[in-house]
């Protein structure tokens, strides 16, 4: 077991996990009240993964995931009211209500979206990591994806490139054991996703996704590894979702009993118990946090509920960007506060020092293959 973490850090992790839990419960409620529509995928049960991960990263490391994405911005300090407003489809949402539950972007906090096409975010992650290596900005990218996405061609093509070019990216598989109604083992001969790392010659390992401290340690180690230039990691967090695949899935197909058993592994009480029993943090502090979070989430729902619908002027906005048009900074736009916004280096701001493929290396490979110098005329096809 890793060295004990400072009390404040433990409490902040607890607070974040409970924030997500509470946020999702109220989102579920709001969905039932018809205030949220379409697809809404809850993160309940998986909190330890996002919280442990974010805790282990630099605040400016990139994160992106699939459509089960409410937790990602919340772990990064996004405004819960504005995330809820996005779920409500209101003008005050992070994406002006255009993306909704499945597509939450909080660029201020380097959370680069939730994506609806299974596996679609995986190549993007390689691109983010490519940019980091290209600019040598020391960032690591964390790409969350469900285990079912590992059967997409995009997974294969991306891991191959990420490995070949030693891109600083952690492919973080949130294995909650099924995609919609299909148990992963039913469609995958090799149900342990991390084992696929061998096909790409990269580091791969499983981690208990129901224990935030274990996730934290694992991601910290993987991030250091990737950041140091050793290449990508395929990290498989074994977790469980307590709710149906989405709100439109009542998940009646699961027995109470079975969910109860799982609840015993609930990462939130687990951390709390550890803090109280081992670290000797008084219960009262947790009661205080619970109360504060409840109030915070109530306020978030209230904020969303009282927020206006987007104006119709928004219809043609953001489809194309006009010359000189700035990017939209959600918290500035909505809350009127000044925020630090990522600035990407300009045309002359840096030089590329990365030698993606040293010439000797390329020539050696060519020789082995039987190639000599580049063809003089079109080699096509």
């Amino acid at each position, binding site marked *: 077991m890793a060295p004990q973490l400072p009390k404040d850090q433990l409490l902040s992790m607890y607070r974040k996990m409970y924030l997500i839990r509470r946020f999702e419960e109220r989102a579920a409620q709001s969905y039932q009240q018809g205030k949220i529509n379409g697809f809404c995928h809850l993160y309940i049960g998986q909190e330890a993964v996002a919280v442990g991960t974010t805790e282990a990263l630099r605040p400016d490391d990139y994160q992106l995931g699939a459509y089960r994405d409410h937790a990602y911005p919340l772990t990064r300090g996004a405004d819960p009211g504005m995330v809820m407003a996005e779920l409500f489809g209101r003008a005050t949402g992070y994406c*002006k209500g255009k993306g909704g539950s499945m597509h939450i972007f909080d660029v201020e906090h380097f959370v680069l*979206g939730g*994506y609806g096409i299974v596996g679609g975010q995986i190549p993007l992650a390689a691109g983010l990591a490519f940019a980091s290596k290209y600019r040598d900005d020391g960032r690591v990218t964390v790409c969350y994806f469900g285990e079912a996405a590992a059967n997409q061609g*995009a997974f294969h093509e991306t891991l191959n*490139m990420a490995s070949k070019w030693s891109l600083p990216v952690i492919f973080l598989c949130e294995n909650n054991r099924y995609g919609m109604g299909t148990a992963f083992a039913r469609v995958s001969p090799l149900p342990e996703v991390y084992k696929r790392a061998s096909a790409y010659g990269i580091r791969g390992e499983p981690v208990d996704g129901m224990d935030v401290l274990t996730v934290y340690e694992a991601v910290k180690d993987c991030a250091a590894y990737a950041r140091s230039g050793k290449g990508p990691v395929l990290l498989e967090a074994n977790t469980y979702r307590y709710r149906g695949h989405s709100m439109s899935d009542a998940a009646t197909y699961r027995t109470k009993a079975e969910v109860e058993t799982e609840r015993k592994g609930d990462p939130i009480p687990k951390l709390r118990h550890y803090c109280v029993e081992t670290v000797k943090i008084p219960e009262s502090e947790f009661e205080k946090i619970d109360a504060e979070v409840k109030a915070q989430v109530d306020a978030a729902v209230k904020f969303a509920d009282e927020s206006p619908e987007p104006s119709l002027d928004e219809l043609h906005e*953001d489809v*194309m960007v006009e010359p000189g048009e700035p990017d939209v900074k959600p918290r500035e736009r909505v809350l009127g506060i000044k925020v630090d916004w990522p600035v990407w280096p300009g045309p002359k701001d840096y030089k590329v020092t990365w030698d993606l493929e040293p010439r000797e290396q390329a020539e050696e490979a060519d020789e082995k293959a039987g190639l000599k110098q580049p063809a003089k005329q079109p080699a096509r096809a």
Partner: protein
Amino acid sequence: MPEIAWREALNQALSEEMERDVNVFLMGEEVARYNGAYKVSQGLLDKFGSARVVDAPISELGFAGLGVGAAMVGLRPVIEMMTWNFAILAMDQIVNNAAKLRHMAGGQLRCPIVFRGPNGAGGRLSSQHSQSLEANYAIFPGLKILAPSTPADAKGLLKAAIRDDNPSIFLEAELLYGVKGEVPTGEYVLPIGKADLKREGNDATIITWSRMYYFCEQAAQALEKEGIHVDLIDLRTLKPLDEEAILASVRKTNRAVVVEEGWSFCGVGAQIADIIQEKAFDDLDAPVERVTGLDVNRSYAAVLEKATEVSAERIVAAVKKVMYREEGT
């Protein structure tokens, strides 16, 4: 102005933009060590190094998506597709991510990326390798579609596309790479969305883009010998479409022929014909005619392939038809 071939014009555009902006990089199959399947990237690896000119595995979906991800954080990738036939594998990343990112994010980011490569026929390559696929991208909001015909336009528009903050589809053609034309040296950037009236005449309007321009020019010359003078509109950009240029000309000539290399059914030409019939209905003296590739799978055999293709003769006949002139009179 020096006369250079299409491939050199593209090479100049790439080289100049990479000089100008360190954020621009080129990725694709065979682009680096072998200088491009069509030698468009000749010399770029030596000039810019292996991180800016990258040989990709044959993973179109993967490296297209990699480009989109890099563009999200301010790089300006140029992704070369060896041909657009293969890019069908990458379509999800292009239309579901690149074209939608800024909108899904409520304007928090942009996606300045160019997907480029040859579209249309390569000559004697049978059906899988000979497709004109512009319509498949033109339908999606969020993308710009460029399809120039001359080396100069190719250079000016590729530079513009690389500088544009929106994702764009840049269509070249295997059969154009060797075509020569005068090209301004150095800084030469053309506006996206502006058609070019390459010939003026009052009798009819021919509307086309990409390689078909040369067939139309041929036809126009033949028509001139018969005293028929046409406006020849080279769209250069398919989206955003220069409606004004099209409508202004049709209002003048009252007759329009739309020429495209690809299939007729649901081709981009249908959209252009629809715009004309809707917005210039009362100006039309004849239905808009379309000259397109035949609606069948393309064959390898020379005679069959030829019979599926657009020809100057067919364009001439179409112009005469909208002028109600009998063939040969």
